[in-house]
């Protein structure tokens, strides 16, 4: 997901790196393996390495995309840190992290535990499976399609306002995405809807590998549901929680499609995010150097955040081993 998808969409599967063992001895013919790395390496350098270098270089220039770039040093970065839109877009990223990481992870933990532990065990398994599918469905469709449908639902004459009218709350009718005050919370609500299925599905899968005897023993000891949730469920699925938090945070930092489909960053930048800000600067304002500076800063932030996450996980695992 959200998956994201990157944006959302079916999300990256939860995968943790296995520790790579060190070879006992260097085998003959190790060089032959390099041949297999060659096509991938060439493609990687051409499609990732060179363009990334290009963006870094362009971030130090003033360029409209035609003619030659003019080298201007760090002027783009100086300008960036004084640019109100830049700060707004990053402030909105924090809102996106709340909507795409914090809320879905917490709600997802609760929902997965309830679906697995209460619905799954006290009703038929099919009931839990059907409910899980309902929560997962938004993850399946292209996030732009979801954005367009929601954009229509939330229009002044859209379905949501009609619904409010029907249930007697007509006074609350509003141009949800068109008002700078409500646009960001509205986009956040849509993102929660998009993202929620990913943690639910991952956590339910995780719960399947928890030994049921743990729960039975706790129940015999008289632990109520919340005790069991806190002292068995949460610690047991910590690795999955970590993977969900990491992948969703990266997706939140990069979010583009939903913002493009719902609001194009408007009104008055109320929903602008770094990704859209960079896209707009590149292709609408034709300020390639400045857009490159935005992208570079965003890349750095993602590297730092991912590094921080992986360090935290590594530290957590080491502490677990020492205990």
């Amino acid at each position, binding site marked *: 997901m959200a998956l994201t998808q990157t944006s959302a969409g*079916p999300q990256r599967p939860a995968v943790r790196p296995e520790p790579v063992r060190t070879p006992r001895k260097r085998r003959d013919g190790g060089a032959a393996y390099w041949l297999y790395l060659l096509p991938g390496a060439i493609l990687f350098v051409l499609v990732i390495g060179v363009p990334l270098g290009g963006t870094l270089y362009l971030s130090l220039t003033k360029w409209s995309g035609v003619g030659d770039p003019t080298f201007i040093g760090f002027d783009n970065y100086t300008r960036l840190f004084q640019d109100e839109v830049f700060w707004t877009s990053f402030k909105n990223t924090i809102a996106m992290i709340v909507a795409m990481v914090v809320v879905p992870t917490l709600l997802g933990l609760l929902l997965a535990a309830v679906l697995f532990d209460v619905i799954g065990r006290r009703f038929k398994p099919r009931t839990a499976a059907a*409910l899980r599918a309902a929560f997962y469905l938004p993850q399946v469709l292209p996030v732009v399609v979801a954005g367009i449908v929601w954009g229509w639902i939330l229009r002044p004459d859209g379905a949501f306002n009609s619904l409010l009218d029907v249930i007697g709350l007509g006074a609350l009718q509003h141009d949800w995405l068109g008002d700078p005050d409500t646009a960001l919370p509205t986009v956040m609500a849509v993102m929660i809807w998009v993202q929620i299925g990913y943690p639910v599905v991952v956590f339910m899968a995780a719960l399947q590998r928890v030994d049921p005897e743990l729960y039975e023993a706790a129940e015999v000891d008289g632990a109520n549901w919340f005790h069991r949730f806190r002292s068995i469920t949460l610690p047991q699925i910590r690795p999955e929680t970590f993977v969900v938090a990491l992948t969703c945070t990266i997706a939140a930092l990069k979010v583009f499609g939903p913002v493009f489909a719902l609001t194009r960053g408007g009104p008055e930048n109320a929903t602008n995010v770094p990704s859209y800000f960079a896209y707009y600067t590149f292709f609408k304002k034709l300020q390639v150097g400045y857009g490159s500076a935005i992208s570079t800063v965003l890349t750095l932030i993602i590297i730092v955040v991912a590094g921080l996450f992986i360090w935290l996980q590594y530290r957590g695992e080491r502490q677990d081993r020492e205990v």
Partner: protein
Amino acid sequence: MAVTLVTDRVPRRKVRDRHHRGASRWVVLALVTLGAVIMLVPFVFMLLNAFKSPGDYSSSGPLSWPTEFYTKGLKTYWTEVNFPLKFWNSLLISGSVAVLAVAVSLFNAYALGIGRVKGRLWIVGLFLLANMMPQEALIYPLYYAAKEIGLYNTQLSVIIIFTVIQSAFGTYLLASVLGTFPRSVLEAAALDGAGKWTVLRRVVFPNVRPTLAVLLIFFFIWTWNEFLIPLVMLIDNSTQTIPVALASLQGDRLMDAPTTNAGALISLVPAVLFFIIFQRTLSRGITAGAEK
């Protein structure tokens, strides 16, 4: 889905064990079901309005039942957007990327996980980083280069780019899977005189085929749903993918509310079908990494 739920519930067993006691479980079920219904409401809205005529929509609003089964909105979208062509573009791009990216991932991972070439940890880290990087950090140079070498506005440009981006993730995943591949099997094959290529084809490939299948499906779906790079690279109606075509119609006068809904409905059908067909493989994929 709510319907299945009701039928599931009806033949209520009279089991008296401790799991099936208490009224609170019904409250929990009601709350979770309410949540699930809220999740499905947008789909209901979409279905309801995809089959309305514009006149019907403007006179009775978005919540009413359609007065007639109106399919012209669907047809308009289908022909105006040339949906079959968009579908083919999406299929061509996602299919090619899935196959090529799996192949590249396997080759990379063979060298890294089994060959254990020098500095593999750094190389795997680099690939992982590439997958997490925002696409904005690559897009302008790629756009510029594609224009210079004549690949701009071709499906090939998008295929090449996503083959690399997806295989960056595939390499990371497969390298860790192959890192735990039993050495004894490899050594036995080597004793029998099998070369590197034979080992890859006859020993490694058959063993990791399930993982490759999961990767193939994920690559396909991720690429199908991608937006930024296709939006920038594919400006022409004849090359666009489904999400880009739908988004570029937004705000177009052609797109009245029923046509918007019809378009969204048609656009999500392939994704939902694909999900239903491969649901098992997908959930296996999600759990695959979650097991110790």
